């Protein structure tokens, strides 16, 4: 509709205005959160046992990137490398000689892992809540975390046996693979059970809770039978944290998380339609069962990939989407990225506080995360304007 037509029909302005105002605010929040996460990441990279100035942090990242690109080009594309070398601009090395090693070698992988895990868990939580129309659903409540714990616990208790050397896996990767496989298989199991009873949201959630308890029982049994050394290792994994961060992990997760994010975003309108109920969604031409299966599998895949490296991280998957829904409403086109960024912000802040508040001793990220996220969530409820989008 043209502006001229709108002028003739002044009532029409209201829905157009509402929609455009809402979209602008949503995009503003997503942009703001993106900038916040980037700034927080740079500041976080400078904070720790050794303090590094923001300027040195940026120079360390820039210099390291430039050198890495140069090395890659010289190795694989020498013709482009010759042109690259002629660029007159160079990024200077940071004034602190340790900055590059500390920032790029140790802190950045951890920061990236926190951001990727936050995006995956909160994005997956938003999708799962939409698919099952239940605000209490998250990767944690659907049994995924318990299953991943069981997988990791099994790998730790079994130890690096002959299979590890057979598959050329490191011991850490052995745990990661087990956690991922069990996490993802649990969702297949949950879906299979619920489907045999007719795929309603209630049976699916119930099946998730039951499967979660079964895997928790398995973890408890493994804790009971294992020796002290492995028990400690197991407890550390179960508490969750960014200890498993490495560039290998980050470079593996980045494409996976991006692909899952776009696959879920493609389903955003269908998720919106599903909010009106299965029957209405079917009438609107949506294959509800296929949407539910594919949405659950993709979100579980993203969450499992990250959980496998971090151990149990609860809360963000549940609260990230809730906090965003209170601020920008339930349009999944905006909710999924917004929840992901909110999850990234919460997890990054929590991890930074967890590793610096009692430096050099680290405390489990969950303690800080529950406190920061919980207080923020309470603040949104108490101020009573949580739904002030329109």
């Amino acid at each position, binding site marked *: 509709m043209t502006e001229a037509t709108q002028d003739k029909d002044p009532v029409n302005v*209201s829905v*157009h205005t509402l929609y455009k105002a809402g979209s602008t605010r949503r995009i503003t929040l997503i942009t703001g959160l993106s900038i916040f996460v980037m700034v927080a990441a740079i500041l976080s990279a400078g904070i720790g046992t050794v303090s590094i100035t923001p300027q040195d942090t940026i120079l360390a990242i820039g210099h390291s990137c430039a050198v890495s690109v140069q090395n890659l080009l010289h190795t694989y594309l020498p013709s482009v490398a010759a042109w690259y070398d002629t660029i007159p601009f160079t990024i200077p090395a940071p004034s602190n000689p340790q900055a590059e090693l500390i920032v790029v070698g140790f802190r950045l992988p951890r920061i990236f892992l926190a951001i990727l895990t936050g995006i995956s868990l909160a994005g997956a939580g938003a999708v799962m809540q939409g698919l099952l*129309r239940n605000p209490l659903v998250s990767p944690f409540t659907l049994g995924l975390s318990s299953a991943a714990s069981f997988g990791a616990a099994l790998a730790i208790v079994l130890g690096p046996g002959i299979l590890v050397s057979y598959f050329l896996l490191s011991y850490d990767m052995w745990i990661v693979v087990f956690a991922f496989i069990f996490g993802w298989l649990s969702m297949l199991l949950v879906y299979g059970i619920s489907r045999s009873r007719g795929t309603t949201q209630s049976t699916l959630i119930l099946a998730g809770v039951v499967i979660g308890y079964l895997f928790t029982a398995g973890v408890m049994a493994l804790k009971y039978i294992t020796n002290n050394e492995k028990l400690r290792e197991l407890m550390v994994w179960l508490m969750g944290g960014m200890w498993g961060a490495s560039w290998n992990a980050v470079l593996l997760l980045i494409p996976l998380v991006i692909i899952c994010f776009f696959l879920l975003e493609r389903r955003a309108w269908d998720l919106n339609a599903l909010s*009106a*109920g299965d*029957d209405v969604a079917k009438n*609107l*031409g949506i294959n509800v069962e296929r949407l539910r299966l594919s949405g659950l599998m993709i979100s579980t895949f993203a969450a499992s990939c990250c959980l496998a490296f971090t151990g149990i991280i609860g809360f963000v998957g549940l609260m990230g989407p809730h906090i965003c829904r209170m601020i920008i409403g339930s349009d999944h086109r905006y909710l999924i990225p917004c929840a992901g960024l909110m999850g990234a912000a919460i997890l990054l802040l929590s991890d930074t506080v967890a590793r610096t508040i009692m430096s050099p001793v680290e405390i489990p990220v969950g303690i800080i995360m529950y406190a920061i996220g919980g207080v923020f969530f309470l603040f949104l409820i108490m101020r009573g304007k949580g739904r002030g989008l329109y």
Partner: protein
Amino acid sequence: MEVALEKICKEYGEKRVLDDISFSLGKAEIVALVGPNGSGKSTLIKAVAGVHGQSSGTISIDRTDTRQLDPIDLAKCIGYVPQHFTYTLYSTVFETVLLGRRQHIKWSVSDEELSRVQHSLEALEMEHMAGNYMDQLSGGERQKVFIARALAQDPKLFLFDEPTSALDIRYQIEVMETMREITWERGAGMIIAVHDLNLAYRYADTVVVLHGGKMAGYGKPQEILTPECIRKVYGVDAFVVENEQGKFLVPFRARASN
């Protein structure tokens, strides 16, 4: 626009819940489905809406079997309002109505889609509530929002399952008048399941009486909804009163056994 149902049967396991249902409706025609609870009204409406298919028989729109239509094309033909509806927290009235345009939207929402939403809300006199959250509305207002969502679909056939069940008598009359106007204006057909026989009496062109999944009557309301039919199907004694406003059914006593 012509919709035809031919020999529709629906079975759940061994149980047959719809048995050999056949009727048709044309342009701007309102068909009321009446019958006691469990007679198959909702099942029939869901079968036509594409929520679940029929076990056998054919549903055709303009002589095209609906099973041969792509789900998106079917959604453009049929707008359905269920008996029980859901909504999520933090969803607004206009966002809920906008869902009716789902099959026309790829990603971004065009001004044309928003105008359709606006007109649907205006048709039900709800434009002033466009920005309200769904949980701030009364039950009747929410039902009207879902009716507006079906209007936004701009279908050839409307299917309403108990659309006035949550409405007070004023809203009931308003909504039925609006829906009758819409069928006339748009030339759309309407199948509507109702418990209030007087609404069927007053607004329907044709009545289909369902009893135990079978058709127990089909024709004009005044000819079909007789005290004898009410007694046979519902087990209720009723009489008809007539004045200058028309005929009205007055049920007054449930019989000991049906």
